[in-house]
């Protein structure tokens, strides 16, 4: 496959464009995705390529939009909903959780809901508490939803294409700080399988398991750790639901130390699940140190830059906690 360096946002746009070219039932709906090009510029020129019917600007009514996507999906369309900030899924939670997630099961499998809901998550832009949440734990907890969180441009495309091909509702949580980051992305259509975490790098002293923007921070942290003589594996969970623990268990067993890093607040967050699975699982006996989670503080995301940075793990925090974990155990 031919690859080029493009941004995460471009990779998403390319995936949508290719899916729309190859399947007339794929369409996009959301607020300001048309001529405006999307609040984060993701839809960009798709409006000019596919027109207002298939790149469908909506009024500000998230519940209605998601409900419309559910209805369209039930009768054979493949809607891709963009929710402008993942915080506004709160408005649409009934359609996501009580309808989309449950219909296939509830009606005995007669129909399915092949829809994709994309939304930018996370903090880092000074948008404060109502525009910066990381709500992946909510979605991952709901049977009937698949949940992915691409951490780089390549997966952004591959996971989105897999989500579009999936006959079930898939929640794609993008990260707003990643939209402008670049990476190598194949030109062709390809799918990153939903359900398989990614071994980003191998190391011997500990494994850092991370999601979203914490993956790139972990990679940066691992560089610094190397300088201090600490060798870290990194696993990008990537698909939060369903989750296959094989790789994580393997690497935890091999390194004996695990640092779980997420942006969301710790309490009842996604990494609690990984911790629990490790504690319940086969790698438990190989642990040389207690499992350690490094997460966002138990606070709404604040506005001021210095407060916002203090609220979620930074590279230095990862370095510090990884070092402690290795040195003290």
């Amino acid at each position, binding site marked *: 496959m031919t690859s080029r360096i493009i941004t995460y946002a471009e990779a998403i746009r390319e995936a949508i464009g290719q899916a729309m070219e190859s399947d007339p039932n794929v369409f996009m709906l959301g607020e300001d995705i048309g001529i405006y090009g999307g609040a984060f510029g993701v839809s960009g020129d798709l409006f000019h390529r596919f027109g207002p019917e298939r790149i469908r600007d909506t009024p500000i009514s998230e519940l209605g939009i998601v*409900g419309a996507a559910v*209805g369209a999906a039930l009768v054979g369309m493949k809607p891709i909903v963009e929710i402008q900030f993942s915080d506004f899924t709160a408005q649409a939670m009934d*359609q996501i959780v009580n309808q989309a997630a449950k219909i296939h099961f*509830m*009606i005995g499998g007669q129909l399915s809901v092949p829809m994709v809901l994309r939304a930018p998550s996370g903090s880092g832009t000074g948008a404060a508490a109502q525009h910066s949440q990381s709500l992946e734990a909510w979605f991952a907890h709901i049977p009937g939803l698949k949940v992915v969180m691409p951490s780089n441009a390549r997966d952004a495309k591959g996971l989105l294409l897999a989500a579009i091909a999936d006959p*079930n509702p898939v929640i794609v949580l993008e990260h707003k700080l990643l939209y402008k980051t670049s990476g190598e992305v194949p030109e062709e259509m390809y799918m990153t399988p939903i359900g398989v975490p990614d071994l980003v790098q191998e190391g011997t002293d500990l494994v850092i398991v991370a999601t979203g923007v914490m993956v790139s921070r972990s990679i940066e942290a691992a560089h610094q750790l190397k300088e201090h003589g600490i060798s870290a594996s990194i696993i990008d969970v990537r698909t939060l639901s369903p989750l296959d623990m094989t790789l994580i268990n393997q690497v935890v067993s091999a390194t004996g130390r695990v640092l779980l890093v997420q942006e969301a607040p710790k309490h009842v967050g996604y990494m609690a699940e990984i911790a629990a699975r490790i504690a319940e699982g086969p790698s438990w006996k190989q642990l040389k140190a207690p499992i350690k989670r490094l997460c966002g503080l138990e606070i709404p995301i604040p506005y001021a830059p210095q407060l916002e940075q203090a609220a979620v793990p930074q590279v230095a925090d990862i370095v510090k906690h990884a070092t402690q974990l290795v040195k003290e155990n």
Partner: protein
Amino acid sequence: MSSITPLIGPESGLISDSKPAALAALESLLSIRSFEEAVDALFARGLMHGTMHLSIGQEASATGVCAALTSTDYITSTHRGHGHCIAKGADITRMMAELLAKQTGYCRGRGGSMHIADAATGNLGANGIVAGGIPIAAGAALAQKMQGKKEVIVSFFGDGATNEGAFHEALNLSAIWDLPVVFVCEDNKYGMSNSTEKSMRVEKISERAAAYGIEGVTVDGNDVDAVFAATRTAVAKARTGGGPTLVEAETYRWKGHSKSDKNLYRSKEEIDEWKAKDPIERFQNLCLTKNIITQAEIDELTARVREVTRGAIKDAMAAPDSNPDELLSGVFKAVS
């Protein structure tokens, strides 16, 4: 299989002007009543589980509306959805099997009364969430439009549902996009215990259409002909690109909201008043007066419908219980 004779709405004139249409409508009315009474009795005898919301007294709206639809048109339904389901042509045995928690039920026993859907007859599903089906109907209508199809979607909901944000957002989307959808509000005067007088300040729910720049009409929901005629107009408009209409059918539920209802919020007089307006008796009398149907035909139909209900119960009861072993595999559709 035990579905009603497909409802035939005449292209012009009323249902009560056409013998086959009238007979089909009467079969629908009687089948709904018979089904609901049977369910009521099964619950009373402890043979049914969960909860239920009966549409006794409201048979005319389901019947009149579905008579204006083709078999490929769609509906979204509600927690009080047995009538819609039957009128749209569902298999009564499979409905009964679902309520009796059987593997042969529409949902394999997973959904129960509040979640019956029937893909074959275009019933996209009852809904346990008040107003939950309204945005879904808008989306199904959007799909018809985008796919260049001619199908229309009817979204059924109650008076109480119009106080939900979902109603507002769905009607607005449907209006601006001229979607082929007809919003049918079965205004039975109460959302559980809350009367329309207390829960809204409009006289007629159809007035709410004004907020979306669409037409709203109120009809006597106990008059099959009136419901049919208003729906036929709205469906024709929707089918030809004219966009949505809000049709309010004024009616009444005779029974409590659900099993736990002590009817403290309304008077016996009020209930009796509405019972006197029984949509079935009324339709029968109209057809007799118009000499469209004979009393013998009514009696024959009534007996036949009862027989069908009895048969449905018997067959459903004999069916295997729903199977716990397929629960986990039922959550996701397999990726092909």
